[in-house]
C-alpha cells in the first residue's frame, strides 16, 4: 500500500469524457474516492454510470480528461491492469460463472498453482479451504464449497463476488448495482458488507439508482445526468430527501412544477365543455 493520507484519493477522475464515435457518453465528469470512503454514483438509466465504471475498471478508455490512481495518471488497456492497481469491480451480472463450483469461481483468473509447465497443476485442496474460510469470515455459510454458484441466493452471490475482490487485494471496490435484483433482507446483507469494507479501509464506488440504499452507506454522492455531473456533494451537505428529490428529476422537476403552478389549473369539466362545443 502506498502512503495514503486520509485526504489523498485512491482514484481520481478530472474532467473525464468518453465518446463512442460521435455519440457523447460522458463529458467533464470529475469524482474521487478516498480510503475508507463510500462514494456513490447515482443516475437514471442511460445517465452514463456504466460507461464511467467501465473506464475506472479498465474495460473502456477515456477520450478526454485525466484519470489518476494514487495521484499517477493512468490509461488502462484491460481489466487486468486495473486489478493490478488494486481496483476490482463487482459487476451487475456478478462476473460469476453459474455452473462452476463456488471455490472455482472464487479463484477464477487467479488460480493457485504448483509445479512447472506442462505439469503445473492447481492447488485444489488449498483453494477449497481458503474460499471456505474467507466466506465464513464474511459470514456466509455455504453448505458445500463444491456446489455450483447458481444454487446460491442473490445476496450470497453478491457477497461471494465482494469477498473474492477483497481477498485478492482490492483497495478500491467498484460495485455495480449490488442491490438492484435483491429483496429487502438480501440487500441489507450486502449493504452491511459494504460498510464493513469501508471499515477495513477500502475505497468503495457504489453505483446505484436507489437513493435509499445509497444514502444508508454513502459518504459522498455524485449524480449523473445525460453523461454529465448533475450534483456532487458530501453526505454532510445533503439529506435523503434532497437526494431522492435530485434522483427523481431534480431541477427538471422543479421547473416542471413551476410551469404547472404558473398555468391555470386545468379544469376537467371545462375541457370537457370545450371539446363538446367544437
Amino acid at each position, binding site marked *: 500500500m502506498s502512503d495514503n493520507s486520509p485526504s489523498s484519493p485512491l482514484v481520481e477522475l478530472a474532467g473525464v469524457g468518453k465518446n463512442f464515435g460521435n455519440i457523447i457518453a460522458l463529458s467533464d465528469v470529475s469524482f474521487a474516492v478516498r480510503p475508507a470512503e463510500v462514494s456513490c454514483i447515482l443516475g437514471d438509466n442511460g445517465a452514463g454510470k456504466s460507461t464511467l465504471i467501465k473506464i475506472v*475498471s479498465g*474495460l473502456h478508455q477515456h477520450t478526454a480528461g485525466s484519470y489518476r490512481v494514487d495521484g499517477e495518471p493512468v490509461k488502462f488497456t*484491460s*481489466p*487486468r491492469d486495473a*486489478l493490478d492497481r488494486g481496483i476490482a*469491480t463487482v*459487476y451487475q*451480472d*456478478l*462476473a*460469476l*460463472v*453459474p*455452473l*462452476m463450483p463456488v471455490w*472455482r469461481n472464487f*479463484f*477464477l*483468473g*487467479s*488460480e493457485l*498453482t504448483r509445479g512447472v509447465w506442462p505439469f*503445473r*497443476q*492447481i492447488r*485444489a485442496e488449498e483453494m477449497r479451504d481458503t474460499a471456505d474460510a474467507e466466506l465464513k469470515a464474511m459470514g456466509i455459510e455455504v453448505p458445500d464449497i463444491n456446489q455450483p454458484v447458481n444454487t446460491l441466493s442473490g445476496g450470497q452471490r453478491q457477497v461471494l463476488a465482494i469477498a473474492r475482490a477483497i481477498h485478492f487485494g482490492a483497495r478500491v471496490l467498484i460495485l455495480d448495482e449490488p442491490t438492484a435484483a435483491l429483496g429487502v433482507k438480501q440487500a441489507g446483507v450486502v449493504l452491511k458488507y459494504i460498510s464493513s469494507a469501508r471499515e477495513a479501509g477500502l475505497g468503495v464506488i457504489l453505483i446505484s439508482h436507489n437513493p435509499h440504499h445509497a444514502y444508508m452507506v454513502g459518504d459522498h454522492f455524485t449524480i449523473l445526468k445525460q453523461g454529465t455531473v448533475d450534483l456532487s456533494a458530501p453526505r454532510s451537505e445533503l439529506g435523503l430527501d434532497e437526494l431522492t428529490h435530485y434522483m427523481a428529476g431534480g431541477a427538471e422537476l422543479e421547473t416542471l412544477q413551476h410551469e404547472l403552478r404558473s398555468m391555470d389549473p386545468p379544469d376537467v369539466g371545462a375541457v370537457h365543455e370545450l371539446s363538446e362545443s367544437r
Partner: protein
Amino acid sequence: MGAVAVFVLFFVISDTFRSADAITTVLYASSTIGIMAVGVSLLMIGGEFDLSAGVGVITSALAAGMFAFQFSTNVWVGVAFALAVSLTIGYINGLLVIKTKLPSFLITLSMFMMLQGLNLAVTRAVTGSVSTQSISNMDGFSSAQSVFATSFTLGPVSVRITVLWWIVFVALATWVLLRSRVGNWIYAAGGNADAARAVGVPVNYTKIGLFMTVGFMAWFVGMHQLFRFNTVQSGEGVGMELLYIAACVIGGCALMGGWGTAVGAAIGAFIFGMAKMGIVYAGWNADLFMFFIGATLLLATLLNLWVRLRTARR
C-alpha cells in the same frame, strides 16, 4: 448408464458381440470417433462448435500424403506439414470467431464447405484422381505407421494403437479440465465469457487454443487414416463432424457450453462404437446405424433435460 444399456442390449442379442475380438473391434471403432470427440468436447465446454472437424481430418491426411509424395520427402516431413496445416485451420477458425464475434456455427460451417471443396479440387489438381497415391513404400512409413496405426497384442487379442492413444488423450483432457488453470478457464469461457474476461481470464486465447486442439486431434486421426490405408479418398469425412458433436452431447456436454467432461465424450464415442459394430454383429441392416445414433441422441437429450428439471426443482 446409457453405455451399459447399449452394451447389455447387444451382449444379449448377439453371440459374436460377446467375444474378446469383437470388443477390441468395438474399441477401435470407438477410438477414431473418440479421439476427435476429446477435442470437440473441450471446444464445446468452451462454448464453441467446430463443424469443420470432420473434413479437417481428411484435409490433414491429404496434406501429409500429397506433400510427402510430391516432394519425395520422408513421410515424417509430410506429417509435420499436415500438423502445421491442421493447427493453422484451427487458428483461423478461432481467430475468425473471436474477431467477428459471429457464432462459431457459421464460421466453421463456412470452413467446412471450403475445406470440402479444397480437398476435392486440390487432390484432383495434384494427383489427377480422387485419392492420393500410396505412400507405403516411402521412407519413414513404417516408423510413422508404428506410431499412428499399428496394433499390439494384449493377452489373446490384438488391439489397435488408437485405442491406447484415445485413453491417453481422454486422461490428458480430464487432467487439464479438472487440475489445471486452463481447465478452469475453459469452463469459465463457456459458462460466462464476459464474467471470465472481467476477472482477467484470457478468454480469446483460450478459445483459439481450443480450436487448435481440435485441429491437433484432426491431424492425429488424419494420420491414422493415412497410415492405416496408405491412400486417402478426398471426398470422405463429410458428416463426421456431427457425429463428434453427437458423441459429446450423449456424453453430457451442454450445447451452450460451460458443462461437460472428456470422459463423458469418451462414453458417447463408445456408445457409437458399440452401435456401429453391434448392429453388424447382431445381423441387422447396417443402414440402421444412423437411425440408432439419432435415437440415442434424442434419448440422451431428453434424459439430460429430465435430470436438469429434477435438480432445478429441488
